[in-house]
């Protein structure tokens, strides 16, 4: 099922919908899955990364200015919130059990990585801290809590691994 949305480079999917956007697009559009019929387009700002909560209720878009635009798609009309605020461009965003929203900025030449974990039911930060990693690839959830996939360096060299914050 092709969707015609020029300049779109980012996608996210839930049970019955697809979100399509990109850094060059001011709006992120939602399409029904599998028909491809557009359900609406929402002002998220340019999205460097996108996530749809599994049930399709929440959409998150991480932006270059450090903001994560969060939309409650069940509200009529869909309501926008400030989901998270990072100091630099948002590289990773996802929804985790809880429900939680997680957003991360990868390390750059001068700045360490930064991770913010938000409880959506309480609207409060559960975690917001710098993370000492050389590279940060992905975020996930384990029984013990937030899981990070990245590369850490120490006295005995650099190691790729799954670790906590």
């Amino acid at each position, binding site marked *: 099922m092709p969707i015609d949305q020029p300049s779109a480079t980012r996608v996210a999917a*839930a049970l019955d919908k697809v979100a399509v956007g990109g850094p060059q697009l001011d709006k992120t559009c939602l399409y029904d899955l599998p028909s491809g019929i557009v359900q609406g387009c929402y002002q998220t700002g340019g999205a460097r990364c996108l996530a749809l909560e599994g049930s399709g209720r929440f959409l998150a878009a991480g932006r270059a200015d450090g903001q994560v635009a969060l939309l409650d798609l069940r509200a009529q009309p869909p309501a926008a919130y400030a989901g998270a605020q990072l100091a630099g461009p948002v590289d990773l965003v996802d929804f985790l059990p809880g429900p939680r929203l997680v957003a991360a900025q990868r390390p750059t030449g001068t700045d360490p990585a930064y991770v913010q974990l938000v409880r959506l039911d309480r609207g409060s930060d559960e975690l917001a801290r710098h993370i000492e990693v050389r590279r940060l690839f992905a975020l*996930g959830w384990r029984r013990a809590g937030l899981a990070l*996939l990245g590369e850490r360096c120490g006295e005995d060299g650099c190691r790729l691994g*799954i670790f906590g914050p």
Partner: protein
Amino acid sequence: MPRWALLALLGCACVRPQLGPPPQVEAAALSPLGGLAAIAVVRADGLREIRLWSRWPEVPDATLPTLHRSPIDALLFSPSGALIASAGLGELLVQRASDGVIVRAEPGAPGGEGSIAFSSDAHFVVST
């Protein structure tokens, strides 16, 4: 079992194998439950493979050969962790994580991080 033997066994379980520097990773992903990681690497012969591992990337639980000729820049587990999708310039592959069998290959995908997604039930994979 003598106490020293038990301690030795525990010690073995906690010592990381010394197998050289981390592999050069093109893309990486965590399974939804965070216990399994996938990395896309280029082998010495130039072919690309996906390694699934839970403890050390040098000792993968499984290695999946791929058909990718260009760098893999997007890697993603399905919500159940049963499938893994990979994308590079012009190629999208969906493979079974258990045995690497390719269940879908789509030419023409542009690739790029964030360019692929699974629906919640994994019935659909979406690519830009």
